[in-house]
């Protein structure tokens, strides 16, 4: 098995599939020279009761479960092409591979009397060419990354961010995706501080950018958007603000703008404190964390209060879209930006990005992504999204078997002093918050989803649980 090689794959988009069956005909022509669909390697599900079609086909899994299930070595993943190949000579027809595959990718053909599976037609799949609605595409994963790489980086190189800065990574990716037709607000904080905004041609941003006060980020963007609406131009309003400008100092204007449904994308870069002014505590600094204003000494052991749950607070504002993100999960973030761009045409889209800071949190710059990942894997930073349109809240990266919070805390210097009791407290709060979220997910998908759509009921239910 060659790991890490970018194989081509048949990508399936069920939402585009109209169930026409052309792929089946093409597969039959290529593989069996008969008209009997039983020989087709691609098998669309046809749903009678609702408009749902999906082609069922071998995924050529990276870690296939059919291959080790074969007692005679007749199935193998080709390290060059990535195709899971079936060798007729070696197959004994025991069908154990069909027990291994959870996707219906390898099936028994009762006429041919052996199993059949997709082999990508030796690198030129017949089904791709005939799929008019483009529900099937033949491409590699790397092409997708390349697509992002090909988008223009709207920040100049050489900004003055610290080594291993999560914010720099975030602002480059965000503007790539949101695009040049944007007015950017970067208030006091790291993003402004690294030179994204300046004067006399020294601005590092290639889009219109301004430097609001900490207190009026959202209201200035609201005004700018209303002006563009009046003159009939569709321009995206984007805020890249820190947690101070979002959860503390700037909260009143953000809360007001969210309540009025102002059209913008507001991204909170939560590095859990005032990192560019000397690492002071903020409302999102977690319990137990060291900062220069929550010192560690004989009496104090870091912050004594839990952080506020800012993304949930924003969900309570009836925002069009609310999500959390971590840059260790970039695909997830890109998907959320897509939804945020669309939602910002109707109202506020708020994304809360977990943003570890090597300088202020005391860890090596090389560990940035690992810290960002462990935050999610411990469930301290659950990844979820809420859409007002469908009234749906869902986990986008559910962590069913979270690792203990120590695994995350031990990576970060600001937690070095924690006592077992403090770690226990953090674990408990983490568990409690996940439970609250799970209850939301369940509740929104059942009762309120269909009937009430009334946020106040939820607020009533949870008002005593939110910490």
């Amino acid at each position, binding site marked *: 098995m060659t790991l890490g090689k970018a194989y081509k794959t048949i990508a*399936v988009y069920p939402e585009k599939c109209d169930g026409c069956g052309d792929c089946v005909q093409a597969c039959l022509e290529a593989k069996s020279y008969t008209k009997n669909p039983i020989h087709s390697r691609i098998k669309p599900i046809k749903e009678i009761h609702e408009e749902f079609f999906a082609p069922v086909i071998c995924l050529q899994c990276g870690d296939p479960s059919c291959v080790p299930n074969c007692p005679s070595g007749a199935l193998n993943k080709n390290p060059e092409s990535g195709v899971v190949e079936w060798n007729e000579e070696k197959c004994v027809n*025991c069908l154990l591979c069909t*027990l291994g595959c959870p996707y219906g990718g390898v099936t*028994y053909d009762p006429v041919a009397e052996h199993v059949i599976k997709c082999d990508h037609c030796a690198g030129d799949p017949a089904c791709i060419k005939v799929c008019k609605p483009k529900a099937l595409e033949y491409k590699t994963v790397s092409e997708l990354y390349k697509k992002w790489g090909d988008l223009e980086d709207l920040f100049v190189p050489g900004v003055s961010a610290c080594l291993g800065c999560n914010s720099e990574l975030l602002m480059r990716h965000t503007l790539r995706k949101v695009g040049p037709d944007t007015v950017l607000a970067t208030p006091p904080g790291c993003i402004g501080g690294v030179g994204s905004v300046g004067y006399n041609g020294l601005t590092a941003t290639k889009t219109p950018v301004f430097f609001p006060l900490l207190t009026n980020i959202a209201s200035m963007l609201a005004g700018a958007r209303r002006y563009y609406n009046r003159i009939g131009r569709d321009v995206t309003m984007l805020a890249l603000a820190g947690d101070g400008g979002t959860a503390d100092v700037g909260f009143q204007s953000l809360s007001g703008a969210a309540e009025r449904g102002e059209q913008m994308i507001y991204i909170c870069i939560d590095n859990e404190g005032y990192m560019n002014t000397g690492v002071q505590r903020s409302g999102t600094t977690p319990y137990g964390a060291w900062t220069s204003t929550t010192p560690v000494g004989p009496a104090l052991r870091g912050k004594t209060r839990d952080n506020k749950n800012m993304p949930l607070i924003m969900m309570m504002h009836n925002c069009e879209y609310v999500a959390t993100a971590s840059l260790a999960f970039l695909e997830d973030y890109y998907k959320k930006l897509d939804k945020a761009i669309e939602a910002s045409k109707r109202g506020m889209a708020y994304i809360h990005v977990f943003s570890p800071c090597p300088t202020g949190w005391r860890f090596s710059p090389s560990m940035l992504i690992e810290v960002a990942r462990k935050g999610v894997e411990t469930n301290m930073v659950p990844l979820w999204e809420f859409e007002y349109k469908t009234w749906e809240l869902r986990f986008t990266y559910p*962590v069913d*078997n979270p690792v203990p919070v120590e695994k995350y805390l031990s990576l970060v210097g600001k937690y070095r002093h924690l006592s077992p009791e403090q770690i226990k407290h953090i674990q408990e709060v983490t568990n409690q918050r996940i439970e609250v979220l799970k209850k939301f997910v369940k509740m929104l998908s059942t009762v309120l989803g269909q009937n009430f759509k009334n946020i106040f009921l939820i607020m009533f239910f949870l008002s005593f649980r939110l910490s």
Partner: protein
Amino acid sequence: MDHKSHTKYLIIGGSHAGLTALDEIRVYDPEGSITLVSKEYPPYSPTVLPYIICGKINERSIFLRGDQYFSEKKVTLVKNHSVVAVDTKASEVTLDDGQRIQYEKLLIVSGAEPTPPPIPGLSPSYAFTLRTLVDVKRILQEAGRIQSALVLGAGLIGMHIAECLAQKGIKVEVVEMLPQILPGYFDLECSELIRREFASHEINCYTNNSATRVETSNGKVVMNLQKGQRLEGGILIATTGVRACFDFLVNSEIRTDRGILVDDTMRTSVENVWAAGDVAQAKDFFSDKKVLSATLPDAVVQGKIAGKAMVGVESISPYPGSIPMNTFNFFGNRALAMGFANPEEKEGYEIDTMYLPTAKIYQKMVFKNNCLVGGSAINSLLDPGILLNLIRRKVDMAAVKAEFVGNPVQMSRRLMWKTWRKEEQERKRDDTG
């Protein structure tokens, strides 16, 4: 020879569980030293052996891995040796030639071996078993000489050999102690249909019967049955059951029962020792008991978990529990059994059965609390892997049960899409498209 070597990972046994674990270890630890001790080399699967007898596959092409694989994976092979003792305090094993290997982490995947039944007169010189390539060669040698054969035990292997020998023109008779053939996997109705097919090919199955005495006369094996019959055959093949091979653990601290007891991550009672496959006694899916599971797919699942656990991967999905499952092909027909297909008490179970005698199609689905818990089928076109996942994930089928039993292929694929496939696709949308 008193030679002592050291290895990070030591694997005892080289079939499916061991090889899957090895692959998994190398995914997470590309460099750590691995030593594999195997009685036989190159590795092969016992499952494939009957197919050699009926000529479906050549005995030279059954090997699962070769020298190139092991050198690429940087594995030190100890071929044609077996382990005689494990010292868990010193983390050390002793081989049959006195050689000692010290390990940091040990995986026991030593499998199982046939247990000939305690019948008076039964002697290994004419009673064959089928577990190794040597057994196959012995049977093939005899097959050219004999006109008839007796098979003791109507399990999957026994019935399979009966068919293989019958295809060579040998008259075969099968004796089973329990009231049905293929007990443990197939339900009574299904096994009755299979039995009829065997009978139409002149293979008689004596069920609810057992051998009281075996003897030889005039170069033939004579078996006297409990109910008075007297059967004769050129050879006797005993496939009455297997037992887990862990004799070498007698003086170790590893807890055993009928197999080596393991937890959800395949770890034994000793911290740095794991076990998987036929030798492991692990959680049952349907009960709190720990059971032996002798199926190949389970060995793969267990091997994978053990490999991850041995490296110390943090986020391991725990072993979901063993679900009995198997496929069985006979005279051009295909049978499938999975899960709880034969509930003893009918209380609380919903059973849907469909039988088309002319087309020889049979299908049975068993539900409990609106979840699929088992099923069996003959010649019914199903996606077994999808059904198995419906059982394992306890997918609620209250709304779709009627449609499901009417069209299990379409409905199970739809459920697959709407549950795990959609979930996975959304999670890594950008990988698959």
